[in-house]
Every structure is written in C-alpha cells, then in structure tokens.
C-alpha cells in the first residue's frame, strides 16, 4: 500500500474515532472506497468491541480514594518542612514524642498512611496523627492538621461506605466532626493577631474589608484549606454514594449531610471569629 493510502486510512480512522460514520470516509475518498471499506469496518468493529472494556466502578473509586489520601499526605509533608524552626521549643515534649515515633517505627507509621479503619495498622495511623498534633506548637499549623485529618476521615467514610462496611461510618463521622470542631478552637488564635492580620468585626464588617482580610494571612489560608477540603471530601463521598451497595447508601447520605453542615459551620465560624 502506498504512503498516500496509509495516510488516507489513518485520516478516515481519525474521523471514525471522532464519531463520524464509515460512509463519511467513502464519500470523502470515493476512489479508495473499495480498498478502505473492509479495513475500516474491521477497525470500527475493534473500536466498538474494545470500548466494552470498562473498569469496575468500585475500582475507580478505590484508586481515587488512595490518590486523595496521597494528596493530603503530600500537603502535610510540605507543611512539615515549613515547620522545622520550631525545634527549639518545648524540647522535652518533642523528644518524648520523637521517642514514641522511634518505638513505634517510622516505617510502620509511614506505611499506615493509607490504611483503612478495618485494617490492623489503623491504630498506628491514628497514633501517628496524634503525635503530629502533639509535636505541632503553632495554633495555625494545628488547625491545618485538623483540617487534613478531617479530610482523611471523609475519605475513609467513603471507602468504608463503598465497600459496604457501614458499621465503621458513625464512628468516623464523630472523629471527622471532632477534627473540624478543633479548627475554630485553635483557629481562634492569638497568633493571627500577632502576625498582623486584622480581624473583621464579625459579620458586620463590610464585604470589601472582609475579603481583604480573607485574602491575606493565616486565617485566609485556613479558610481556603477548609473550602478545598470540603470540595474534595464531598466529591469523594458523592462518588462513593453512587457505587455503594444499598446497605450503606443511607449511612453515606447521612454522612454527606453532616460533612456538608460541619464544613460550612467551620468556615462560618472561622470567618466570623474575632481572631
């Protein structure tokens, strides 16, 4: 076959992949139609048959959850790097916690980052989170960790729900709510004021002034983190709801409702806190 015919065949194939019919190609290249016809029909048959290969929805959701957990872990890692200067504070507490890390085994903690509540390493994961909170002295950084851990719980709720393991969901919702509840507690902090961020006069602040406040400083950053976490968490939960077995759909629906309310409340409280 000449180079030209190969090109024509390829051009027709491109059109078929874009949704055109084979007849369209015959009309476009009438002289080659008889030569192209059997080949294009074969190609079209293979394209159609190949399209029947689809990943299982639960596989897609599972991988998505893992990626989301990885994404959170990366954010946390980036924050850890920023936090290095705190080494000189509260030595005794830090050393105790580091010792705890060593005793548990750093490898074990790292390996536990993606485990789920029904897996043996889950307790290590929670302990690792607690150690990180203990080792973090900045209120803002503590609040960021709580947001990240709340996001983790949301991913776990989604994963448990999509696997039909409804028993774990209520406990996870409670942990999720606890983390978000802490954001305002530690977010309502002195260091926001120390860092020169001007607090708005609660809801009475003019819109422009509030926006200016939110755009800068730790408080604005926390609000952005909360919004991003809210979006990702709801996305993964809604995705899980679609694929979940009937038995856990109600639990997931309830979780979505609570997660939405809690995020909105946390954002509202943070936005309107006196700082």
């Amino acid at each position, binding site marked *: 076959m000449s180079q030209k015919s190969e090109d024509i065949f390829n051009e027709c*194939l491109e059109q078929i992949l874009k949704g055109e019919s084979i007849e369209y190609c015959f009309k476009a290249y009438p002289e080659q139609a008889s030569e192209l016809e059997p080949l294009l029909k*074969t190609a079209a048959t293979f394209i159609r048959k190949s399209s*029947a*290969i689809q990943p299982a929805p639960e596989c897609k959701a599972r991988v998505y959850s893992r990626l*989301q957990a990885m994404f959170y872990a990366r*954010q946390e890692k980036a924050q850890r790097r920023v936090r290095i200067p705190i080494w000189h504070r509260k030595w005794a507490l830090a050393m105790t916690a580091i010792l705890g890390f060593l005793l548990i085994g750093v490898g074990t903690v790292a390996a536990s980052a993606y485990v789920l509540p029904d897996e043996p390493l889950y307790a290590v994961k929670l302990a690792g989170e607690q150690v990180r909170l203990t080792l973090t002295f900045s209120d803002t950084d503590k609040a960021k960790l709580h947001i990240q851990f709340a996001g983790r719980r949301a991913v776990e709720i989604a994963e448990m729900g999509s696997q039909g393991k409804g028993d774990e969901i209520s406990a996870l919702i409670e942990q999720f709510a606890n983390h978000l509840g802490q954001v305002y507690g530690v977010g309502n902090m002195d260091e926001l004021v120390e860092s020169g961020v001007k607090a708005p006069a609660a809801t009475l602040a003019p819109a422009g002034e509030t926006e200016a406040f939110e755009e800068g400083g730790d408080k604005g950053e926390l609000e952005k983190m909360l919004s991003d976490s809210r979006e*990702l968490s709801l996305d993964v939960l809604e995705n899980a709801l679609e694929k979940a077995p009937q038995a856990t759909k109600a639990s997931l629906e309830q979780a979505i409702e609570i997660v939405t309310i809690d995020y909105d409340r946390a954002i509202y409280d943070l936005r309107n806190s006196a700082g």
Partner: protein
Amino acid sequence: MSIEEDIVTRAIKGDGEAFAQLYEERFDKIYRYVYLKVGNEAEAEDLTQEVFVKALEAIASYKWRNSPFNSWLFRIAHNRVIDYFRKEGKVEKVALEDDIALPSESNPALAAEREIEIQEVIKNIEKLSPAQREVISLRFGSELSTAEVAKVLRKNTGTVKALQYNAIVALRKMLPSGR
C-alpha cells in the same frame, strides 16, 4: 492557553481538583490500554492504580513543552506494563481470563455478549506482533491520536501509521466476515 493546558498547569502546582479532573477523564482509557496488554482484570486494576500514583508523584516535574500530557501519562503506563512483564518473568502475551468480570449489567444476555466480544478482541490482538499490539491498544483501546502514539512509543508517525495499517490487515484476516 488551552483548557487542558490550564488543568494540567494547575495540577502541576498541586491543585487537587485539577488532578482529579485529569484522573476522571483518563482513568478508563489507561485501564483499557493496560487491560489489552495484560488481559487480566485484577492486574489491570493494580497497574492502572500504579500509573496514577506514579503520575501524582511525578507531575510536578512534567514539562508541557516536551510532550503532550496524554503522551506523558501513557508513557508511564507503557513503562509500567513493560516492568510488569519483566518482573513477573512473563512473555508479553495476553493472558485470557476464564471469566472476564464486566461492569454490572442489568441484562445478562447483553453482558454475556459483551464478554464474548472482549474475549474475541483479546484473542485476536494476541496474534499481532508486539509493536502492532501496542499501536492497536493505544489507538483503539485508548483512542490516542497517531501523533500521541508516536510520542508514547518514541517512533515516528509514519512508522505508527504503517504498524496500524499492517495490524488492521492482519485483524481483517482473522475476521474474514468483517464482523
């Protein structure tokens, strides 16, 4: 800047939503490509996951100017499949499953028909040369353009077109009725 370039740029900067969008748009295609190469659902799921994990880890180093994002991502998949065959000590030959699991289908007859079709596709692709199989998997399974396939396989587009044409001729002989 195109919409796709904007999404990829945001993903490079660590925007989770942008990465999720790239994932959503490409997961099925990567899975199909891998499946056509390994012919096994469980392996295809694991390898597809590894491809996206690798992509998330490496996306910060991705440079748009060197190759389109699709080519970059499918290059990861291509390399991962090669590693799989190398590590498993397997010859690159599609392992047909006895029972291919399909997405839940309300009509069992339709599901069975689709299963037979997939088995036919895999059985026929197995008879192609490795290079032809690669091109067909990327072109038909993942619907990549010839230029994208060329980038993934590091061949020129003329070679890809020739491989594609020869593969179709071979497949045509396997399906004399033109089904």
